[in-house]
């Protein structure tokens, strides 16, 4: 989201101003609470009037989000938030439009709308709360659940392969691709702010713990004991370094990423993250191995890719302006008359 059309508000707002009067009804301990808190915290910092912000959601635990934000909000139907948001943004480009979806909502029933939102590059911010499970329907596996997931609907383990969400987003032409997590508030706030700044569709996958139906799904990435070894926080212009003592780095051997000891290589040999490099972003999205697998890559968090591309709504507005320039503003009588008429006296 760009801030070009925004006018700064005179009054100074706080997170409290973005908290609605509705009681939050997620399960105690749910990762959604943290995400809600971070969103409410960054809103006053975006420099846009509160009334110009709209949250749109589908169905699922995450999709209750708009009720808790004291902004304009629309809680739509399962999978369709992206489509509803598209219609809103295309007709009201000056608004800051946010989509909240879960992995079932955004990748399964609404998968089609998600890829087409990305393809069109409509300037909305999509937060995909990924908990790798269906929570609201009480515990079925999702298209993000790992193979073999034992759930209520798959008592013997799931037999279908999960999506690699960010690879999917990249394939669909996403122009802002990022990953964060509920358990790292500072990181999440930074990423959400950057998503807002991007002029085009921003897709932020947020690892979110469902402590009732899929507790610990991401604990290797979030728990102190394993986090440093298993995660790779990527930053533009900085080398890819991770590990308990930040002693491991990633180097490209041709197209093959390899893990090296930082001490063994010169700083220039390490892979320097470039947010604008689509090829490298493609490789980064493939850092998606099961953490139990030997020799796996750490899971990247941060902004994988940013691309500047005209948005759908800008192109639409331009086309309308061009047509008006060429044909003049539409005149109803001319339209009603059509090309040929005849008179009966």
């Amino acid at each position, binding site marked *: 989201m760009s801030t070009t059309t925004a006018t700064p508000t005179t009054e100074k707002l706080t997170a409290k101003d973005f908290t609605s009067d509705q009681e939050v009804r997620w399960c105690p301990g749910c990762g959604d609470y943290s995400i809600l808190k971070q969103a409410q915290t960054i809103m006053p910092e975006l420099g846009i009037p509160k009334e110009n912000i709209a949250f749109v959601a589908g169905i699922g635990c995450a999709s209750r989000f708009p009720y808790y934000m004291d902004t304009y909000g629309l809680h739509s139907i399962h999978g369709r938030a992206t489509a509803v948001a598209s219609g809103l943004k295309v007709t009201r480009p000056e*608004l800051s439009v946010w989509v909240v979806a879960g992995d079932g909502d955004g990748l399964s029933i609404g998968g089609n709308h998600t*890829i087409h939102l990305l393809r069109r590059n409509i300037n909305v911010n999509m937060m995909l709360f990924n908990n790798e499970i269906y929570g609201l329907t009480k515990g079925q596996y999702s298209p993000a659940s790992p193979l073999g997931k034992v759930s209520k609907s798959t008592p013997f383990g799931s037999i279908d392969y999960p999506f690699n969400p960010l690879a999917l987003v990249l394939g669909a032409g996403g122009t802002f691709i990022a990953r964060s997590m509920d358990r790292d508030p500072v990181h999440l706030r930074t990423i959400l702010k950057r998503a807002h700044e991007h002029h085009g569709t921003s897709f932020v996958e947020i690892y979110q713990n469902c402590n009732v139906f899929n507790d610990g799904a991401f604990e290797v990435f979030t728990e102190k004991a394993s986090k440093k070894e298993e995660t790779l926080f990527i930053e533009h212009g900085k080398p890819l370094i991770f590990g308990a003592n930040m002693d491991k780095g990633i180097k490209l051997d041709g197209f093959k990423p390899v893990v090296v000891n930082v001490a063994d290589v010169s700083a220039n040999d390490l892979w320097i993250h470039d947010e604008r490099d689509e090829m490298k972003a493609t490789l980064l999205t493939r850092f998606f191995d099961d953490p139990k697998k030997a020799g796996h890559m750490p899971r990247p968090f941060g902004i994988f890719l940013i691309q500047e591309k005209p948005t759908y709504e800008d192109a639409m507005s331009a086309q309308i302006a061009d047509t008006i320039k060429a044909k003049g503003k*539409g005149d109803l009588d001319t339209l009603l008359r059509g090309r040929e008429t005849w008179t009966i006296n």
Partner: protein
Amino acid sequence: MTTATQESKKQVENKELKNVVILFAGDSGDGIQLTGTQFTNTSALLGNDISTFPNFPAEIRAPQGTLAGVSGFQLHFGSVNIYTAGDHSDVLVVMNAAALKANIKNLKPGGIVIANIEGFGPKNLELAKYPKGDNPLKNGSLDKFNVYEVDVTKLTRACLEGSGLGVKDIDRSKNMFVLGFLLWMYNRSMDPTLSFLKEQFKKKPELIETNTKVLKAGYNYGETTETFTTRYEVKAAPMPKGIYRSIMGNQATAIGLITAAKKAGLTLFYGTYPITPASDILHELAKHKNFDVKTFQAEDEIAAVCTAIGASFGGNLGITGSSGPGIALKAEAIGLAVMLELPLVIVNVQRGGPSTGLPTKTEQADLLQALYGRNGECPIVVVAASSPSDCFQMAYDACRISLEHMVPVMLLTDGYIANGAEPWRFPNAKDIPEIKVKFATRKNSVIENGDGKIEKFLPYLRDEKLSRPWALPGTKGMEHRIGGIEKENETGNISYDPDNHEFMVKLRQEKVDRVANYIPEQKIDNGREKGKILVLGWGSTYGSIKTAVKECIDMGIDVSHAHVKYMNPLPKNLGNILKNFDKVLMPEMNNGQFSKIIRDQFLTPTINFNKIKGIPFSAGELKAKIEELNK
């Protein structure tokens, strides 16, 4: 055949006719629709009343020369008022044997067949499944008709010899030869077609020249060939004074939607997904971007309606359009719009169902879908257009009701009127009423809380129409949330309270019911207010019923015609009208859907008369039914 070099003027008789039905038929690649449309426009400009019925296969280019590939364009024009495309044709123009075989049964005895003989070679006869060695032009089967064999292909090729065009391109202009010839036969000017060609081929001037040449050759062929000794004249029809244009239903729908948006001062957003026969609405709207029209070709039917809902939330006139199968996919989202209580117009250009059904054929079988095809108690307003030009009025009115009542409205048209054309005495923009749209900008209630009185915006507080305030994102202080979960009355907060749910269900019904106070009363279209038989129709059967009832009244039968356009809620006086007749006959192109509604709402016995063949009623069959009831 005499050559054109002969100097002597041939004797031509001029015969005046009141009305004529011409059916142009050929391969879908033969340019039949274009020939028909041009002849139609020329006749309209001459002041004839007209009605057309294009009939094409679902396949874009079905195998050439086969029965499946036959495309037709039926035109009824006259110096009298015309309400249908005609039951039977007077003239059948066929480009090949398959076109003849598919349509000959509908030609009146003594009718004229104009056959392109090149389309009757052994291969074409075989493709049309005539027995080996049998040629309908030679075997005497057409003796009761006047058959004119014309070698259109050969004459066209001769005309364009040396033009530099290839044979394939030359053959593509043979429809112009046929058109030229028919324009001669019916004493019509070539000028409208000539100006059409100039516009159509602006970027390929060489095609203007070649098509003009062939058109004139066809005309001169009539002039010089001895075979044709009669020309016909069909004078202007006695139509109300005014300025007219020709209009097709889908075009009228599109113009009606734009007009409504302008009259409401809103941006029109049309979210849609291509589907036959609704796509032409998109094509028409997409041309008019200078009216601030935003068309959005969505990834599927669901996204199409959801984007329209998003646009409505943002304060635009959100519209989606489709046909039956697409409407089925939109059902859940229409239910959402019912809960959100936002304006949404859904256009359903009905086609033969169920499932994929008969995509290019017409039917009225989506009425119950429109009324009931959603989960839960989910009432919406439903209106139906009765003719191509009526699509304008009903599209406008669908928008008016939706915007003024904050309620989804479905407009039903169908393939017959969507693709059919008729003359339209179009209105002046200034005579079309404004649509009153009010956006909420101020908090609408005061509540007590612990700290004293505070002002609040209640998104589901209602006015006398029971419609709720429309507060747009971007309006300071009016931030609110809406959604598809049952909501508490007035506050719009999520509520699972049993009493509240029942209250809200009844309230949403009452809101739709109250629309009856804002629509015109039902009129008797033709005949007495009280009597023996009432023919009660809706939608595209209007023209056929009108023609049949008119003829029956002329014969002295006590019959009246009422045509319903507001399907839900029904006009308040309809029940009383029904009581005034002994018998109520309900012709429908479905298995009796509206009849069910009438019986349900008024406990009136109805006599169903159903046709479910993908083609409209003929006036003749309706007349026969009325006569039978009159016995």
